[in-house]
């Protein structure tokens, strides 16, 4: 069950809204404070990517963001742009996805167009920020889904199950 679901038209102005909602939801879910800045950046990059993909093919369909907080705080950002599914990689291997545009240190920035830098840096940021990152084709549909998750520090009730903070020492 999604905790928060957000869909927005592919306008750059709405990416900030998605970041704000994402961070607020993460905080509410019990993500550690020191991860919130990474989450803000990662959601922004994933949404910027989706907006750019929709705009590149003139698609006005909404970008979908779904957040859940079961055992981890998980964010799914889904675009619906035709052609992007071909670039989705093995969901078990984000490196395949990154091969689309390898995030390497630009040794000669003079040779790089700004747009190429943005695409490359966006991927580099996502890969560098998010330990648990998957990009996959939308099942049975058109587009790609970026799935990212972060641990929760929320404690379960002590007698709720096998783990409690006092016994973890």
């Amino acid at each position, binding site marked *: 069950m999604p905790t928060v679901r957000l869909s927005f038209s592919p306008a*750059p102005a709405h990416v900030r809204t998605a970041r704000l909602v994402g961070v607020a939801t993460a905080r509410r879910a019990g993500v550690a404070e020191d991860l919130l800045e990474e989450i803000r950046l990662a959601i922004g990059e994933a949404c910027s990517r989706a907006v750019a993909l929709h705009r590149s093919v003139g698609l006005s369909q909404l970008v979908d963001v779904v957040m859940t907080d079961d055992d981890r705080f998980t964010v799914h950002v889904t675009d619906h742009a035709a052609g992007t599914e071909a670039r989705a990689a093995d969901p078990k291997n984000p490196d395949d996805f990154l091969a689309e545009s390898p995030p390497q240190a630009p040794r000669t920035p003079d040779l790089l167009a700004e747009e190429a830098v943005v695409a490359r840096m966006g991927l580099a940021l996502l890969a560098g920020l998010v330990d648990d990152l998957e990009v996959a084709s939308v099942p049975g549909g058109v587009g790609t889904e970026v799935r990212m998750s972060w641990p929760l520090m929320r404690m379960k009730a002590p007698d709720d199950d096998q783990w409690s903070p006092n016994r973890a020492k």
Partner: protein
Amino acid sequence: MELSMSTRVAGGCTVLTVGGEVDVYTAPRLRERLIDLFEQGSRRVVVDLSGVEFLDSTGLGVLVGALKRLRAASGALGLVCPHERLLKVFRITALDRVFSLYNTVEAATAATGTDNDTSA
């Protein structure tokens, strides 16, 4: 927060002070301002990012574009970036090795205003 920008001259450099969030929505305005400065003849430019709360890949792209323009014209670009929050973005993308980053405006203008080439 909305993007804010102001320009002044210090230490032989044009200092562009930026505040707020630089993202996919606001970055085009930063790009326009940097192009305006270039077209008005500024070749030694310091962008003060001290007041920037958020910088994404779009903002990085704009800064790379400015660096490229200035270097092609034998100019120089220095970035004032004292906060870990933003430095991390430069490090993850390896752009900390491309840009000249400084802790203070004074350090940035001192280096950018004199060196022809501030690259390492």
